């Protein structure tokens, strides 16, 4: 009897000690100085609330995150929490590498209540087989940032002459671009070249085109629309009006410097936060403004740039205990959405936040919101990155190699059709 009692005590002690044991949650994210400061504070607060939990935050360059996380997951040693762009997340979801949301740990009664807290369509990119995956870190759409001083230097009035259509964009850029012979010394505007699904595909969609036909069989739907956009890019590049091309320095980063190199660039609301950090003088100068994503004159769809997001995900291979704590920590972070907006300029699309004065009072937030309301979500497909690369090859061919847009289109159609037909 005594032995039995002793055994019972040992079992109880073991069980309770295992509950009290330290749980270490590994969280991988990308570099962002302002967000790092904020999240480190949340980690400290969360650890103080739950002394048995330790959060280990590891950050890396945004451009490396996709490769690092993929490599870790392929070796079955992925972090407990990570965030990636929506286009990259789809493969993790369909392959069962991330777990569906845990409503209880997120402090809601059920998934419906959780979804209802966010703006319409927020979870569209992370919904699969009726399940919802992840917590939104940010939802972004791109508009045009204008340096008003440089615009005026070119003899134009930014308030009235800013480009509303892509045709006007070409016209205005021709007036504002400065060159030394063939070499551009001041670009009026340039595209964000690797992100063809976010900014170029919407241009095609404005004209009624798409990657796949509505019946899902034909690649590069509405060739006329694609041809018009490829011709536009040809005219933009070195074989046309020489207004810019992918070999010049990244337009978005150059724009922040206000050094006379870049007048307009394409970016999201987060650009304001980065501008504030990189060049506070320019931020406070009142010499910049944001205008909507242009639309073609003969557009059949009034669309902004595609919206995309970053979602926090929880590793499905982590232990149940770790998963539960991971969701709890994410719930704690999403509870501070106002601070993410105020200090990092990241919009977590929570209804109350989007409707708040804080959001409404942010410079040009209304421009982003109005464009967002008429935007499509970025194209999500397991082969999305492959298709984006093929679009990139077509754009580079017309802009840099002087390939005829019709020939580039023919090759693009063949390549994308091959990807769609390839049942690997």
């Amino acid at each position: 009897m005594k032995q039995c009692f002793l055994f019972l005590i040992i079992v109880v002690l073991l069980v309770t000690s295992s509950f009290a044991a330290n749980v270490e949650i590994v969280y991988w994210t990308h570099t962002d100085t302002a967000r790092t400061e904020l999240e480190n504070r949340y980690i400290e607060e969360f650890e103080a609330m739950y002394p048995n939990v330790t959060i280990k935050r590891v950050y890396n360059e945004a451009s490396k995150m996709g490769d690092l996380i993929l490599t870790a997951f392929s070796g079955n040693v992925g972090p407990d929490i990570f965030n990636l762009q929506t286009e990259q997340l789809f493969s993790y979801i369909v392959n069962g590498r991330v777990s569906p949301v845990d409503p209880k740990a997120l402090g809601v009664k059920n998934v419906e209540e959780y979804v209802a807290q966010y703006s319409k369509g927020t979870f569209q990119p992370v919904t699969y087989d009726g399940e919802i995956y992840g917590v939104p870190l940010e939802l972004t759409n791109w508009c045009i940032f204008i340096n008003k001083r440089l615009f005026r230097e070119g003899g134009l009035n930014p308030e009235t002459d800013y480009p509303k259509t892509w045709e006007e964009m070409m016209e205005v850029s021709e007036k504002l671009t400065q060159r030394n012979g063939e070499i551009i010394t001041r670009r009026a505007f340039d595209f964000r070249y690797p992100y063809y699904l976010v900014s170029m595909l919407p241009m095609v969609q404005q004209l009624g085109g798409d990657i796949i036909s509505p019946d899902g069989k034909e690649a590069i739907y509405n060739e006329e629309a694609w041809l018009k956009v490829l011709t536009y890019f040809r005219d933009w590049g070195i074989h046309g009006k020489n207004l810019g091309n992918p070999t010049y320095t990244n337009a978005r980063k150059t724009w922040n410097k206000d050094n006379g190199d870049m007048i307009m660039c394409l970016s999201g609301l987060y650009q304001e936060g980065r501008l504030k950090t990189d060049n506070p003088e320019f931020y406070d100068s009142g010499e910049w403004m944001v205008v909507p994503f242009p639309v073609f004159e003969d557009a059949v769809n009034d669309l902004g740039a595609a919206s995309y997001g970053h979602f926090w995900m929880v590793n499905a291979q982590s232990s149940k205990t770790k998963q539960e704590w991971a969701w709890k920590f994410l719930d704690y972070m999403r509870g501070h959405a106002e601070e993410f907006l105020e200090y990092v300029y990241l919009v977590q699309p929570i209804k109350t936040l989007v409707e708040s004065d804080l959001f409404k009072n942010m410079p040009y937030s209304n421009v982003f919101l109005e464009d967002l309301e008429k935007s499509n979500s970025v194209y999500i497909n397991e082969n999305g990155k492959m298709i984006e690369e093929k679009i990139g090859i077509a754009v580079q061919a017309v802009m840099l190699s002087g390939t005829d847009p019709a020939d580039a289109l023919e090759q693009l159609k063949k390549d994308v059709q091959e990807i769609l037909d390839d049942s690997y």
Partner: protein
Amino acid sequence: MARHRKFGMEHNKAKWGIIFILPSLIFFAVFSFYPIINAFYLSFHRKDLLSLRAPKFIGFDNYTYLFGSSNFWNSVLSTTFFTLGTFIPLLVFSLILAAFIMSRKRFQKFFQMAFYSPAVLSSVVAAVIWLLVFDPRGLGNQMLNTLFNSPGVDHKWLATDTMLRLSTIIVYFWKYIGYFTIIFIAGISSIPKQLHEAAYIDGANIWQGFWRVTFPLLKPTVLLVSVMSMIQCLKTFSTQYLFTVSGTPSKPINVITLNIYNTAIRDHRIGRASAMSVLLFIIMLFFTGMQIKGSKSDDVTYM
């Protein structure tokens, strides 16, 4: 009895030899041999990098797909352009530079250090430096325009197919020329001086001394450098990767290794990427074998 003892000593020596090489053997087995075997295995399977399902055996399907893929043949072509454009100049100029440095009575060490220093830099840093040089407003255009008195001309270093290929060749040539020069210098230093002295007494000039004495005796080093530089060129990756990531067109410089990376990491098709790496391995083995076989026919030794 004595023979038995000798055998025992040798056996003992061999045992210690094995013990000493065991750590590197284990290291090689885990980090090189296992991945090679695994790549062969995966090349016959369909496997998504993120899938938790076991690889599915598909026989030679990955190879059949690659042989019919225009993308793969474009990579073969890009690799061929790069290898021929880099490996031959590397071989020729590193030999010339080594002969030049060895002919100097002063500043030999300085020249060795100066030429070798780019090899110490990481490929990433080298590519970033050269991206700045090749920028339309960079040193590349400025230098050529000053040289040819052609202000404002954009030579499109990173834009047109030919210039882009040339740019990657320049980066690689700049980075590795010093490395192979040092190998040639070591080879030239190992040739006994008496042979040159005898040749000069017999009336040979410097030119004849190089072609009739130095060069024939340098054949093993030439073979070593040609095999090493060719393999290096066939394996080139980081320059092309960084260039494409920075916005240059990918098609002209989509070398096989870059295609392997994209197929595995971007497309998650690890089976197909493995098949491509096996094919690259076979290509390297074939050309290395050919070079070794070709060089054996005219071996030269000291008398």
